[in-house]
C-alpha cells in the first residue's frame, strides 16, 4: 500500500476515533443508567422504537466502529502475526462489512 493510502487510513482511524469517543461515552452512560433495576426487552424497545434520534445515534456508532475496528486490527495483524498484503486487507474489508451488516440489522431491530 502506498504512503498516501496509509496516511488516509491513519486519518480515517483518528476521525472515527473522535466520533466513537462521543458514541462510547453516551453508550456507557446509557448502560449504567439502563441496568439499574434490571434490563428488559420492553424497556429497551420503549426507548428506541420509532426514535429517530436513537436510530441516528446507533447507525453512526455502528458505521464508525465498522471502519475503526478493522483499521486497528490491521496494525495488530502486521506487527504480531506478520500478516501483510492483499489477503489481509481483503479479510479486514470482509470484517468491516460483517460488522456493518450485523450492526445495522441490530439497529433496525430496535428501531422498527
Amino acid at each position, binding site marked *: 500500500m502506498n504512503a498516501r493510502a496509509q496516511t488516509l487510513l491513519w486519518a480515517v482511524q483518528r476521525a472515527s476515533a473522535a466520533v466513537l469517543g462521543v458514541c462510547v461515552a453516551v453508550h456507557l452512560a446509557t448502560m449504567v443508567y439502563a441496568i439499574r433495576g434490571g434490563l428488559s426487552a420492553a424497556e429497551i424497545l420503549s426507548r428506541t422504537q420509532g426514535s429517530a434520534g436513537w436510530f441516528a445515534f446507533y447507525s453512526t456508532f455502528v458505521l464508525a466502529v465498522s471502519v475503526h475496528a478493522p483499521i486497528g486490527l490491521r496494525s495488530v495483524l502486521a*506487527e504480531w502475526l506478520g500478516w501483510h498484503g492483499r489477503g489481509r486487507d481483503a479479510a479486514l474489508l470482509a470484517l468491516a462489512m460483517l460488522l456493518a451488516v450485523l450492526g445495522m440489522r441490530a439497529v433496525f431491530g430496535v428501531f422498527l
Partner: protein
Amino acid sequence: MIGPAGHTGTWAAWVHRVSGILLTLFLPVHFYALGSTLESAAAFDALLVWTRHPLIKFSEWGIVVMLAAHLGGGLRVLALEFLPWRDWQKGLAAAAAAFALVVGLAFALGL
C-alpha cells in the same frame, strides 16, 4: 508499536491494543445477539435470563471496563498526537485507568 518495557506508555499501549482486540471479537456476537433476539421480546428476555449467570455477568462487566479503558486510552492517544506537548499529558494514562475504574464501579453497582 508498543514501546520500552516498564514504561507507563507501554502499559497504556498494551491495554489499548488488547482491549481493542477483545472488543472487536465481542462486537459480532453482540450485534448478532441483539439483532436476533430483539425481534421478539420473549427471545430477548430469555437471553437476559442467561446473562444473570454470575460468570456471564462478570464477563459483561469485563467488557464494559475494557470499553471504558479503550475510550480513555484512545482519548490519550488523540491528546498526545493532536495537542501540543504539555507536562500534564504524562498523567493521561493514569487518568484513563481511573476513568475505567470509575465506570467499572458504576456498572458493578447497578448489576
